[in-house]
């Protein structure tokens, strides 16, 4: 998943609803003055691509990709 941190308004709904709890609030602010959500570095591989973060994001700041396994 990719978070457009400049679009994020820091409502943190994605953090609250992520079933794997891999998201957190960043320790910096973006251009609009909000603290965007980010993925914890240690947990980057735990994302299952369920897309719940993107579904709950009110600002369409999240894009979810799934890497295709080589056949």
């Amino acid at each position, binding site marked *: 998943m990719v978070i457009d941190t400049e679009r994020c308004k820091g409502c943190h709904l994605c953090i609250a609803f992520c079933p794997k709890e891999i998201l957190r609030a960043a320790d910096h602010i973006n251009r609009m003055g909000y603290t965007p959500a980010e993925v914890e570095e240690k947990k980057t591989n735990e994302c299952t691509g369920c897309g719940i973060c993107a579904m709950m994001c*009110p*600002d*369409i700041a999240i894009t979810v990709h799934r890497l295709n396994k080589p056949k």
Partner: protein
Amino acid sequence: MARLNSKEAETILYQRPESMEARPFHFCPGCGHGIVFRLVGEVIDELKIRERAICVASIGCSVNSYEYFKCDGLESAHGRAPAVATAIKRCHPDLVPFTYQGDGDLAAIGTAEIVHACARGENITTIFVNNAIYGMTGGQMAPTTLLDMYSTSTTAGRKSALAGYPIRVCEMLSTLEGTAYIARVTVNSPAAVRKAKQAIKLAFRTQLANLGMSLVEVLSPCPTNWRVEPVKAMDWLAEHMLPQYPLGEYKVIEAVAALKKEVGNA
């Protein structure tokens, strides 16, 4: 996260719908409007009606809706969106006008328009976002404000003796014979968002099949004017709004039920 350069190596599961502009929303953080806009955009994409859809914007927080959809849009006078959509549909029956209205617009100043559009059975779709408060003007009492709920014009809570009772729009409109599909959904959890999308899609399908008036009421959080944090607003909605505004499909005429059965969840 780790991304490969080759586009073929990854599948995009979620992204901005094609029928939505790239510009950021003007809403406050955590506002449910953003979710509802995205759902409408996704439905327009999936039904492939972007070329034919016309967004009729209303007054309130939803005032800029035509800025966000890549379809044609019209701004209507306060509360008059169903009348404008009626004119579009009658002049151009092949187009797909939909109104996007808030509770201050639809349930207060625009009550006459929506009631008569439903009574006439106009073949239009209305997305009605109910957040129980006037958002844009600063959190005043709306007709849908709950009893004892704080707003800037009912600072001691809404009292029925002075300010009457909240209007249940879906229940009221489902008594009218012209309506084909009326449902109330919410966006306070991922499962609820999925259901909301299905309801919005069925509402558009109702119009495409010329079955009559379709309306989807979406209960949506307004963290700024409820004075709670966005995440807590979702719980507040479940705790306070759902008892007053029960979810469900209030009217599904037989033809719509058949349509629903035919398409399933697709």
